[in-house]
């Protein structure tokens, strides 16, 4: 135990003494959190929209007003020329083109049914589907509104076919909508709990991956090899200081997220940090395993970057796991980052308790044991 303590203490001194490393592990995560939470977002607001209104009636203007009032769309142009609209779309300046045909109001009054055309610019990717669902929701709300109030008024004013008495509520189905956990649809409340995981992972893995490789480069590893330290003790001593550092990073990140972005903390913090304690062992062991395998810090950086890249992209951090191809979903079960992202979001945003996250937590524990064993096995005290 004393041997572990001495080596661990040496490691702490290394980190504290080197200002650059200290800044790297304490300040960089905060900067990343600030930039990433703003940059890594699929949030959709102010969709640039072009309106071609051939109808120019109360009903068509009412529809356009509903689009503006929703706050999701911003009308960047309107005209009565489809050519102009198409030109704008080809230039990529607009995402949605709303075309209202000339018989919009009259057919609403006559048949209680009318058509509009929505052209979505799918070049913008993921936005297209959501833009469409927003637009459809506005159309639905507007038609309900028309049925109960607007249309009878319009019909009376025009007094052409206004002889139908408005029948209300006859067997209607009401659909109250409820968005659980994120009523305001704030994208940051989704991203920040995930980004915390990414930050902790990056720091922990990068720092530990460089560590043994650096001792190899400096030649100090040989000195350690001739001490009575066992392989397990060696890995334990390397792991401990970085484990504390990782927990510290999580605490700093969480405080910042809570202060700056007002992210929800609905579940138990003890549960979150308990899970982090298990997860960090796995993340650090992977870093040490890489470090024991490679020869130089350069290679360590390269390999870590390569693996982290794949781990993060396949973790469901940026895009939902549910949207991935079936085989990728299966593969991602072997990705510890995925499980901790799930836990972090479940505990912070959804207020999940121990029973709800037992599954992913058990997987993380298994990961920690296996990767630790791998790291200890990879580190051999003899240099070939």
């Amino acid at each position, binding site marked *: 135990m004393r041997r572990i303590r001495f080596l661990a203490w040496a490691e702490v001194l290394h980190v504290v003494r080197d200002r650059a490393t200290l800044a790297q592990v304490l300040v960089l995560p905060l900067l990343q959190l600030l930039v*990433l939470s703003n940059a890594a977002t699929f949030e959709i607001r102010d969709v640039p929209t072009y309106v071609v209104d051939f109808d120019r009636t109360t009903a068509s203007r009412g529809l356009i007003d509903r689009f503006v009032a929703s706050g999701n769309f911003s009308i960047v142009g309107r005209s009565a020329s489809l050519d102009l609209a198409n030109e704008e779309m080809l230039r*990529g300046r607009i995402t949605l083109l709303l075309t209202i045909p000339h018989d919009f109001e009259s057919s609403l009054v006559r048949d209680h049914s*009318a058509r509009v055309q929505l052209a979505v610019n799918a070049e913008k990717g*993921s936005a297209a589907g959501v833009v469409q*669902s927003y637009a459809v*929701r506005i159309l639905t709300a507007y038609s309900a509104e028309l049925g109960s109030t607007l249309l009878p008024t319009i019909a009376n004013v025009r007094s052409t076919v206004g002889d139908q008495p408005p029948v209300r509520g006859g067997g209607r189905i009401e659909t109250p909508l409820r968005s659980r*956990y994120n009523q305001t*649809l704030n994208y940051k409340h989704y991203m920040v709990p995930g980004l915390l995981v990414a930050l902790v992972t990056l720091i922990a893995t990068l720092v530990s991956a460089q560590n043994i490789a650096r001792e190899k480069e400096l030649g100090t590893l040989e000195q350690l090899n001739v001490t009575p330290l066992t392989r397990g003790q060696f890995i334990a001593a390397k792991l401990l200081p970085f484990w504390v550092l990782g927990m510290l990073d999580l605490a700093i990140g969480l405080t910042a997220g809570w202060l700056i972005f007002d992210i929800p903390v609905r579940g138990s913090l003890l549960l979150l940090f308990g899970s982090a304690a298990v997860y960090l062992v796995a993340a650090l062991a992977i870093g040490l395993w890489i470090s024991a395998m490679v020869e130089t810090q350069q290679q360590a950086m390269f390999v870590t970057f390569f693996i982290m890249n794949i781990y993060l992209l396949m973790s469901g951090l940026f895009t939902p796991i549910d949207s991935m191809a079936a085989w990728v979903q299966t593969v991602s079960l072997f990705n510890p980052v995925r499980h901790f992202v799930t836990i972090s979001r479940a505990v912070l945003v959804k207020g999940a308790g121990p029973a*709800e*996250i037992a599954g992913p937590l058990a997987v993380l524990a298994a990961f920690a044991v296996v990767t630790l064993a791998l790291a200890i096995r990879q580190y051999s005290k003899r240099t070939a």
Partner: protein
Amino acid sequence: MTPLTSRSSALLGLLRKETFHILRDRRTLIVITLMPVIQVIIFGYAIRTDVENVRLAIVDPSPDYATLALRARFGATSAFRIVGVLPRAADVDGLFQQGLAQEAIVFEPDFAMRLGQGLPARVQIITDATEPNTGSTVQAYALQVIQGYEREIRAGSDAVRIVPDVRTRFNPTRESSNLFVPGLMAFVLTIISSLMTAISLTREKETGTLETLLVSPLRPWQIVVGKVAPYLLIGFVSVIGVIIEARIVFNVPLVGSVLLLLAEGVLFILVSLSLGILISARTSSQRVAMFGALVGTMLPTMLLSGFIFPLESLPWPLRAVSIIVPARWFVTVARSIMLKGVGLGYLWRETVVLLAMAMALLTLSTRSFKARLE
């Protein structure tokens, strides 16, 4: 032998040496060649935002013919997979927290009776909106199913309908891979051109061999050309590789001119290479160069180019920064050529920006490289 030919043969020698260096470092070579291939696969299969197979829970306290009919409709829609029927709405939270359900519809008691009496009948749609976009999308799906049913039972009544006729332009199937491949080209080119160049030049500095090169009869520009030409070639080959792989595996279309795309590619490689040279000229150790290339070129390419995250979603300070990110312009150009098939008439502005960047960076980088000579 004239001085000129001796110089050009010296350049050839440097080129050969550089090629040997690249070929000898197996680990790095594997990473460079494997990275684009794996990235295309990951982006094609993993980075998707389509919403399918929504896990739906149903809360039906008193099943009757109307709720059963609606439930059957949800069951028949391929968009939904019913994961459970619960008696109480309070049980929904547990399913959400475990991630077993994404959405729940809650019928009120005596649903059919109320419908029959002409009273409004309520069915609440609860979504797990942790991820806001998925939340909105699954909500719209459920609304459509319920409205379809309502229209059927109220046929002939006064319900007002506005029927949207939706067209999706430029990527009708909304295939994610179609959008990612152009961005991926920018990413791969940045890694190879900026990162590798910066590291390879700094390594010569660190090991002191750059001094040897400087006292050789080679001119500074020849040293730069000799060092970067192999990477230019690798970059060019991987771009063609990415296009072919995307075409074979994901059927990504290439509507516009291949020649124009490759020409713009070369322009972008020039910009990235100059950035790499600039970074190496300003740094002294491989670690710093690597870090500089990571922060200065790769992260912006990934985050601020519209490659994964739409530029429209960025807050204005970041959108302002994105203007000086070369990849932003190249991604727009590549997407427009591949998906919309437009020509220079529509893309001259982006091309001019890239040209200006290439000139400015080339001048700047050769100047700071020369500055080391004196």
